[in-house]
């Protein structure tokens, strides 16, 4: 329990602490929850008044910020508390703070597994955490909540001693985020129509439908085609990111020849490699079976890996792709894409699959990338039971290793989850 003097000091610092944000407010609430009892029994009227004022201000802050505070004390469960705002948020029937298990049962059914996994991690990781999920209140109100807190382990460092933090109603934030994603999706669809026209008109000219082109005219038209297809690829990346975020990514498997698909992607990008005098080699094992995979998604994976390899390899370098069969018993195909490029700096390697992340040397060489490619490649491979890893030495090159399952499970578009 805190000393009265400490509480008085906390009270006087309260305004400042509040400005400092949720985490600090949280520390204050813990102190106040324990301290209130002390002052009622031992304190002066002056302190009691201040504490009441503090309690009132906390309550208001919680209401304005749509959050409430909690503490689960595993050593002394009597110390555990939920502030009234949390009981109100979950419209709960509980009279005492629910246990973590009871609390996690507020998660929407579709979220249960993910939330349970995340909680298991929280229980064994000391320090701060954040977890956002879709929940349903006791009375059936659908919402999104974010739990931000910290886990303090017992002295022996194993089980948690206490978990405390704030739970915020982030429904509005998630709705705005979803609306933004939907807008990106809509805008991207609209962009594809004129881009298709540009690409097709250029292809028509290249085919000589309006007469044979002179060499320099061919070069110009080829550049238009190339720019249009790069733009279409970017729009496709944006569309796929929005599908992932809206949870509407469909997987439509069909029988296909992965080597043939890779060959066509290489043909498409050959001129980009030629322009930088990069040698581009592809070997494909002869015994590869046909895959049952989503052609658009697999093409996008190949396109991203290959265009990255070409983009981040200096003039005169080389890019080597190899497709082979895994050892017997594993129903996967291996693809490696090796380049002699700029490599990924060691300290940035853990972040390269993060959305929008671009390595610093990549940004210097090619300023206008989106940072979406590898995020998409990894997310999609994860969803279909495949995987990706890499080896890289800055200044020497990078090799990506991809595993592609023989058979992808179909997944239809889900209707948007209502909030």
């Amino acid at each position, binding site marked *: 329990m805190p000393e009265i003097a400490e509480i008085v000091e906390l009270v006087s610092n309260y305004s400042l602490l509040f400005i400092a944000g949720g985490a600090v407010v949280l520390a204050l609430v813990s102190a106040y929850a324990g301290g209130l009892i002390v002052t009622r029994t031992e304190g002066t009227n002056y302190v009691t008044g201040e504490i009441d004022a503090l309690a009132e201000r906390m309550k208001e802050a919680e209401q304005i910020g749509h959050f409430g505070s909690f503490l689960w004390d595993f050593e002394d469960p009597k110390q555990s508390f939920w502030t009234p705002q949390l009981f109100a948020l979950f419209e709960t029937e509980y009279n005492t703070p629910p246990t973590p298990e009871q609390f996690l049962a507020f998660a929407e059914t579709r979220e249960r597994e993910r939330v349970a996994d995340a909680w298991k991690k929280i229980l064994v990781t000391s320090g701060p955490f954040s977890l956002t999920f879709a929940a349903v209140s006791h009375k059936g109100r659908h919402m999104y909540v974010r739990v931000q807190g910290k886990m303090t382990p017992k002295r022996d460092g194993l089980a948690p001693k206490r978990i405390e933090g704030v739970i915020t109603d982030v429904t509005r934030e998630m709705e705005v985020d979803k609306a933004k994603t939907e807008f990106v*999706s809509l805008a991207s*669809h609209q962009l*594809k*129509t*004129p*881009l*298709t*026209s*540009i*690409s*097709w*008109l250029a*292809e*028509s000219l290249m*085919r*000589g*439908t*309006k007469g044979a082109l002179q060499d320099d005219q061919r070069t110009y038209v080829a550049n238009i085609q190339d720019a249009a297809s790069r733009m*279409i690829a970017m*729009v*496709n990346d944006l569309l796929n990111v929005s*599908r992932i975020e809206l949870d*509407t990514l*469909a997987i*439509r498997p069909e029988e296909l020849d992965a080597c043939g698909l890779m060959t066509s992607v290489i043909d498409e990008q050959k001129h980009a490699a030629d322009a930088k005098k990069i040698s581009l080699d592809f070997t494909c094992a002869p015994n590869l079976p046909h895959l049952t995979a989503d052609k*658009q998604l697999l*093409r996008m994976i190949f396109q991203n890996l290959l265009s990255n390899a070409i983009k981040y390899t200096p003039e005169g370098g080389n890019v080597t792709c190899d497709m082979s069969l895994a050892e017997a018993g594993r129903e996967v195909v291996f693809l490696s894409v090796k380049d002699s490029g700029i490599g990924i700096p060691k300290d940035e390697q853990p972040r390269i699959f993060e959305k929008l992340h671009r390595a610093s040397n990549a940004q210097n060489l090619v300023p206008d990338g989106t940072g979406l490619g590898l995020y998409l490649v990894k997310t999609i491979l994860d969803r279909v039971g495949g995987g990706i890893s890499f080896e890289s030495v800055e200044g020497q090159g990078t090799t990506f290793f991809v595993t592609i399952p023989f058979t992808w499970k179909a997944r*239809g*578009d889900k209707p948007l989850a209502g909030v």
Partner: protein
Amino acid sequence: MADKKTVLVVEDEAPAVLALGDVLKGEGFEVLTARTGKEGLATAIVKHPDMILADLKMPEMGGLEMVRELRNDTWGKDVPVMILTNVSDGTVVEEAQEAGAIEYFIKGDMHMEDIIARIRARLGMEK
């Protein structure tokens, strides 16, 4: 020419029609065009093309509705229709298959060369 195959392009994006029409003509096809599903339906029933390429989102009548209407026609029930669109979200691909479309292309991702190869294959005109 008796063996010249006719392709009807139903698409409201004029530059795309221009490009595709030119290339199809260059490849020896007879080309008919329509700007809406309604116009496409009327043209198809009168001219009996060998193949129809249809967009999905068009004014008056979309591509899916056009295919469904065609399937109610004695002649139209068998004409091959390929969907050429930039939309693939939701259940639209499955709906197009159910309506009787034989191929579904995301046009922004396709070179016309590949589309023409598919038309030839479907019409048994392998080069």
